[in-house]
């Protein structure tokens, strides 16, 4: 027993030595970046986002990257605090919650650390950060609805499947469509939240089909729910896609979803770009203060008719 203990202690010592040895290897000419983000397991979007960050802020590009992932705000705050004490040059934050960040950001400012927000806004004075690189969800919705209007259908009877109520993506993507419902240009057959759940989306569409009501557009606020809706259509023998009866619209541009578009089974997929790293890297390297505090990440919408394999490879998320 004692032998084991001794061995164990020695091993701990060795590991400690190695750790300190590694630290000394750090070179000082690299730009030190600390990223506080949500964990990649959160969503396909986040996974792509994390990969993008790690790819852009790589050693090869002249950065030393420290990362911390958590969906808990207090853990994120602690990690940010830790990065400040360690002395990073830049702090990049996608916060779990919008509140509670004042103190940490003030400390960062005092320490001369520049802060960039990405993907998500924080409720603090704009002077506390350099810039926020975010998606404009409302614009995503507008792009999609404008595309839908450009299809010039004789009438629009829409099944609207919403994401988790109150999330940024849901509010943004719902807004533009709600305006059309109000103006009477489009008819709301049903508007239900499936809280991002594919199976729930399928049930919602099944209920409409079984009630016998007519519809010709499915506007799902992410790809998964669109897939659920399509499964219901397939079982009921209702055609969809480019040459079908029902127009299918999704969001997020997962690769598998774009492939559905390419096959002509869906009609539209709106992008929600997780690629903010390059924009921030460019800002850092330029050394200038950004022109605006809020930088909108430009996002596209893909039409099945115009989509190419190249688009899928470039913009598709996941595998």
């Amino acid at each position, binding site marked *: 027993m004692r032998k084991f203990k001794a061995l164990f202690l020695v091993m701990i010592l060795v590991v400690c030595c190695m750790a300190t040895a590694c630290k000394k290897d750090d070179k000082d000419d690299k730009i030190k970046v600390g990223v506080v983000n949500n964990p*990649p397991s959160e969503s396909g979007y986040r996974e792509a986002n994390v990969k993008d960050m790690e790819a852009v802020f790589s050693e090869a590009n002249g950065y030393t990257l420290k990362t911390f992932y958590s969906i808990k705000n207090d853990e994120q705050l602690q990690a940010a605090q830790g990065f400040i004490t360690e002395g990073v040059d830049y702090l990049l934050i996608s916060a779990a919650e919008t509140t509670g960040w004042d103190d940490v950001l003030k400390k960062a400012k005092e320490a001369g650390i520049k802060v960039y927000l990405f993907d998500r806004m924080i409720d603090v004075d704009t002077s506390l950060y350099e810039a926020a690189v975010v998606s404009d969800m409302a614009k995503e919705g507008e792009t999609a609805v404008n595309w839908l209007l450009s299809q010039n259908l004789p009438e629009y009877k829409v099944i609207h499947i919403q994401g988790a109520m109150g999330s940024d993506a849901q509010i943004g993507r719902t807004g533009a469509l709600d305006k059309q419902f109000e103006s009477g240009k489009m008819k709301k057959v*049903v508007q239900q939240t499936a809280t991002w759940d594919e199976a729930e989306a399928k049930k919602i569409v099944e209920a409409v089909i079984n009630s016998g009501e007519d519809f010709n557009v499915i506007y799902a606020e992410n790809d998964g729910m669109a897939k659920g809706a399509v499964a219901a259509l397939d*079982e009921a023998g209702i055609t969809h896609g480019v040459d079908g009866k029902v127009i299918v619209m999704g969001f997020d541009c997962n690769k598998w979803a774009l492939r559905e578009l390419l096959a002509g089974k869906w009609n539209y997929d709106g992008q929600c770009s997780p690629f903010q790293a390059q924009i921030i890297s460019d800002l850092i390297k330029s050394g200038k203060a950004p022109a605006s505090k809020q930088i909108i990440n430009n996002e596209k919408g893909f039409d099945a008719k115009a989509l190419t394999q190249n688009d899928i490879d470039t913009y598709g998320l996941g595998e």
Partner: protein
Amino acid sequence: MKKNGKKAFLSGFGQLTIPLIAIALLVVFNLIRDPGFFSIGISHNNNGNPVLSGNIIGIINGASELAVLAMGMTLVTAACGGQDISVGAAAAIAGSVFVKVLKSGSAINAGTVILAFVMACIVAMLFGTFNGTLVAVFKIQPMIATLILYTCGRSIAYWINGGATPTVSSPILSGIGSFIPGVPIPTPVLIVVAMAILFKLLFHFTALGLFTQSVGINGSAARLNGINATFIKLLSFIILGVCVAVSGCIGVSRLGLINHETLLIDIEMDTILAVAIGGNSLGGGKFKLSGSIIGAYVIQMLTITLYAMKVPSTDVKAYKAIVIVLLVVIGSPVIKERFGRWISRLAERRRKVSAKGAEE
């Protein structure tokens, strides 16, 4: 003799009275609301196969995962006097394993699907063993023990595939999750029937039913009669593991995609409710699988009814809660006793009347 017959009729459903009344009420309510609600039609799906369609099919089909889980949960409840709240997370793990195996091969054929299912089963049974060990060996409250997997299960599911929503597509999968060409009945429904038959056979060809109930009702006495209570509890979790794997694979096959965050989300609560609505005591002991299965259909019928009424799905849970509170209250011992008293008083009065008639 006739009187006996009537009495048997009144009490004959016993435990199943409440769920059957619930179904009857929902049916009547829907028929009043929309006489065509239960119409069943034959349509052709996009693969050109004739399939049954209609709300009733949707309900029975949609409740499949729930029904399968409810069967396993009933067993765990009976043996351990507690519930496994990690079934949703475990199903996400099983589904992820299923997808992982399917994607690792070059082509998807019957062999790989079976292999993937077997792997999913093994993994789910392992996690069942984990839960079961905590409960049976370490005597941890089932809800607390399974809270661990409930919390971390979906993260584990994420690690298996990495990506958030990997997709797989194959005619075999859509055959499992939707329809087998030429068979108009949704395959998940057939799977539920198969599972029910398997359970029936299990109880028929083993003494598991008797042992499980003995352990659940009086663990100490069961032990002194030579029953290995630890093993029985563990076994119940392992069997639940199989149910978890089956429902996870159904869930994945329906859409050909695994979203570890949303696959069978919140299903643990519905499962426990199905067991409770089925008239089974959540404190363990005597149980009826058929009750739990009917309970699952009650819950699904309720959900679909609310969807058909276009109740916003944000409100669905609240309405569901109201109905379920009603059902559980009606099924409570207090109401049961009052109702029983009322029935017996009624019978008494009738007996007196008939006795008087006979005298005259």
